């Protein structure tokens, strides 16, 4: 069964550094998403991406965040200058608009900012 994959599984970075989190969505999916989950809290929407542009974003997704689909398979989330409060699990998800509204989630990247 096809699945969303994410790398790395764990990323440790120093405050102020840039990080790029990588995702490979399911191949025939056209909608892509990033969510985050701070430890012990609920999953929060960050951004959705369709047709090579952001379709929706939350208040969390400020100028420090950006997304890109650099080729036909990868979908990345960049945090320009990380803050301590960016420490969280970051989940990528994708969806096939032809089949259902279900968003398929990847296993997540744990980002630790020190």
């Amino acid at each position, binding site marked *: 069964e096809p699945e969303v994959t994410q790398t790395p599984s764990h990323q440790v970075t120093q405050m102020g550094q840039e990080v790029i989190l990588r995702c490979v969505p399911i191949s025939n999916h056209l909608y892509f998403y990033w969510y985050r989950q701070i430890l012990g809290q*609920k*999953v929060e*929407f960050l951004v959705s991406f*369709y047709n090579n542009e952001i379709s*929706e974003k*939350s208040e969390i997704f400020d100028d420090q965040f950006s997304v890109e689909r650099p080729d036909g398979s990868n979908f990345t989330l960049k945090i320009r200058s990380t803050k301590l409060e960016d420490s969280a699990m970051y989940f990528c998800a994708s969806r096939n608009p032809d089949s259902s*509204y279900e968003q398929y989630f990847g296993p997540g990247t744990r980002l630790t900012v020190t």
Partner: protein
Amino acid sequence: GESVGLHLPTLSVQEGDNSIINCAYSNSASDYFIWYKQESGKGPQFIIDIRSNMDKRQGQRVTVLLNKTVKHLSLQIAATQPGDSAVYFCAETNFGNEKLTFGTGTRLTIIP
């Protein structure tokens, strides 16, 4: 250091019994609802969904009930198994809106 976060509601159920997990959703305009299961260290996994024009939907061992009047969603799991132990989240959205809004989650523990 001590982690600060929401205190998850918990539910402990004897293996083989049925469980009911409840969720109050926030937006009366939401027209699509999903239950996700999240096991430790993994991403949310789709369980079952329901559209707002329905009040009940059944899957394999799971049933979702929707009460739009009181903005309440429930997930019933029949004949629970140890593998059902996880955190369960409800999520809401509306068609045309790509954002899923997740609830706070309930931790279900199955007692062998």
